[in-house]
């Protein structure tokens, strides 16, 4: 029996990583850790209550309370919307609509990933969906036209992660629920950092194209103004969908969950209009959404259980008090937290990192004076970094699947974009107004 919460937290983390690395599913690892903590900690329960009943009660309640949630209902709906859009011709439309507009910028078509991902991220909640939907068409197209493969792969990996930063965002929904922050505000807070990151990527591509002209093909295509205007009509569907989903949230008319349902219906209408919708495709999209949603929600309900235990045993308080006693300055603290996330992000996927660490990390950073809204955006950046860091990086896996390139090639191509993202994190930390400006203007 252990009675010191600090010793307990070390034991808990060791046990958790033992479970995780023995390939026990992440959700089950979290549950096992919760049960284990209750058994080894000196709880001082009155003798009439059996510890097993106490654990079982907490577990049953966590499963029910974390799934019986109106806010979390937005999660499967945004996933479903992405699954439907992935199966439509929307990526071709994006390419055709953007193509004529990029011919004058240095780097030309290399910007397609950045622009298409930014637009698609505004209707998609996940980085994997954004990377896959945009990448399935742009990578081939860029190679065919003789653009640098390296920059094409790197910009796709970097810009694809905008799926989490530009609203709607699955990570923000999960963070909003766990931290009791307004999901609508988080969504809107992500807009400026997301556009700045996209701008930084484009700037890098421009510089690369100027320094090394070899990255783009010699012969350039030119378009007349009329062609450009006609191309715009290919962008109308996606712009309409963005307005339908985000407009209502920004104006305060719809909740994120309602916006997600509108998004599903909008995606269905587009699929019908593009003549992509068959019964088979609809079924496939639904079943895939069920799988992704169950995978995520299983981790969430397991984490809800573990976080109850962490609170019950007093670990969260003990660790935050210990950190506070070190007297770190806020910047040093956030640096340590950031490094920890990058390290965790190498081994775990983004959603697991968020749900596992939040019960302990959030009280620490808010005590140091950081706003929960700001920390949400910071965390989204950390998750984005985890998507493109080896050996476990989901965006890397997605790109490997669609490009047939070696992981090492993709990683090398992604490095500059990783560095740009780190610079953005530093900027957002030094100037938190980047995050808070738009939400404060919200109705």
């Amino acid at each position, binding site marked *: 029996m252990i009675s010191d919460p600090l010793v307990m937290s070390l034991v808990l983390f060791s046990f958790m990583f033992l479970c995780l690395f023995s390939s026990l599913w992440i959700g089950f690892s979290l549950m096992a850790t919760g049960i284990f903590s209750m058994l080894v900690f000196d709880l001082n329960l009155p003798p009439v209550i059996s510890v097993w009943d106490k654990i079982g009660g907490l577990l*049953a309640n966590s499963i029910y309370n974390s799934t019986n949630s109106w806010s979390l209902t937005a999660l499967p709906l945004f996933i479903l919307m992405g699954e439907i859009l992935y199966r439509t011709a929307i990526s071709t439309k994006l390419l055709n609509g953007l193509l004529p507009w990029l011919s004058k910028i240095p780097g030309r078509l290399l910007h397609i990933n950045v622009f298409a991902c930014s637009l698609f991220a505004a209707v998609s909640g996940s980085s994997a969906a954004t990377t896959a939907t945009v990448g399935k068409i742009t990578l081939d197209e860029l190679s065919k036209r003789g653009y640098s493969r390296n920059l094409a792969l790197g910009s796709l990996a970097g810009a694809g992660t905008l799926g989490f930063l530009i609203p709607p965002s699955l990570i923000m929904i999960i963070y909003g629920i766990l931290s009791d922050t307004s999901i609508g505000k988080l969504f809107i807070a992500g807009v400026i950092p997301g556009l700045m990151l996209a701008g930084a990527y484009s700037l890098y591509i421009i510089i690369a194209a100027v320094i090394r002209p070899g990255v783009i093909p010699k012969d350039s295509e030119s378009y007349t103004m009329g062609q450009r205007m006609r191309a715009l009509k290919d962008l109308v569907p996606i712009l309409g969908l963005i307005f339908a989903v985000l407009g209502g949230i920004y104006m305060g008319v719809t909740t994120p969950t309602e916006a997600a349902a509108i998004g599903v219906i909008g995606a269905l209408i587009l699929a019908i209009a593009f003549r992509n919708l068959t019964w088979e495709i609809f079924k496939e999209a639904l079943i895939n959404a069920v799988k992704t949603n169950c995978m995520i929600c*299983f981790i969430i309900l397991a984490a809800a259980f573990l976080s109850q235990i962490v609170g019950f045993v007093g670990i969260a308080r003990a660790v935050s008090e210990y950190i506070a006693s070190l007297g770190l300055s806020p910047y040093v603290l956030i640096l340590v937290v950031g490094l920890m996330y990058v390290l965790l992000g190498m081994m775990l996927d983004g959603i697991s990192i968020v749900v596992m660490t939040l019960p302990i990390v959030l009280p620490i950073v808010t005590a140091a004076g950081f706003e929960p809204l700001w920390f949400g955006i910071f965390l989204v950046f950390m998750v984005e970094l985890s998507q493109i860091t080896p050996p476990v990086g989901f965006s890397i896996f997605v790109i490997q699947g669609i490009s047939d390139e070696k992981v090492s090639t993709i990683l090398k191509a992604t490095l500059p974009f990783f560095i740009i993202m780190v610079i953005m994190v530093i900027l957002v930390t030094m100037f938190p107004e980047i995050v808070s400006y738009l939400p404060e203007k919200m109705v």
Partner: protein
Amino acid sequence: MKKAVKIIEGLSLGGAYLSAIFMVLIVVFIAVEIVLRSVFNASTLIADEYSAYFFVGVVVLGLGFTLMDEAHIRITLLTSLLGEKGKTFLDIVATVVAMAITSFALYHTTIMVFESWQLGMQADSISETPIYLSQVVIPLGLAMLDLQLLARILKRLS
């Protein structure tokens, strides 16, 4: 044994279809609510409450199928270094642990549903829906997950 696995996998697929149907119902429910509110200035009053109930079903009924399709994530970074025998052994150990936890959760969620029913607990809302109705899918879904875990062991052993 093969037949048992087949039946369980059929059950898991059925669960996934039910989960998908609940998902569609949520979309329909919210759509009706939005139309009522914006066009007729009325409300179903229960759209958010029932969407959340359906969402419980969406999650728990699809767990077994998600396992069957290898979609629950796990870290295979270190275990992938093991040999074929070691991998199979660890996989069986992990599945047994998962089964123990699922059975434990199954037992306690069944008690939770039974108590909600026995005490006649009702939702704190206009609909006054009995709470056990929204909870009863949980033991159902966990039982299916348990069976799918069993099927996994059977497959590994044969």
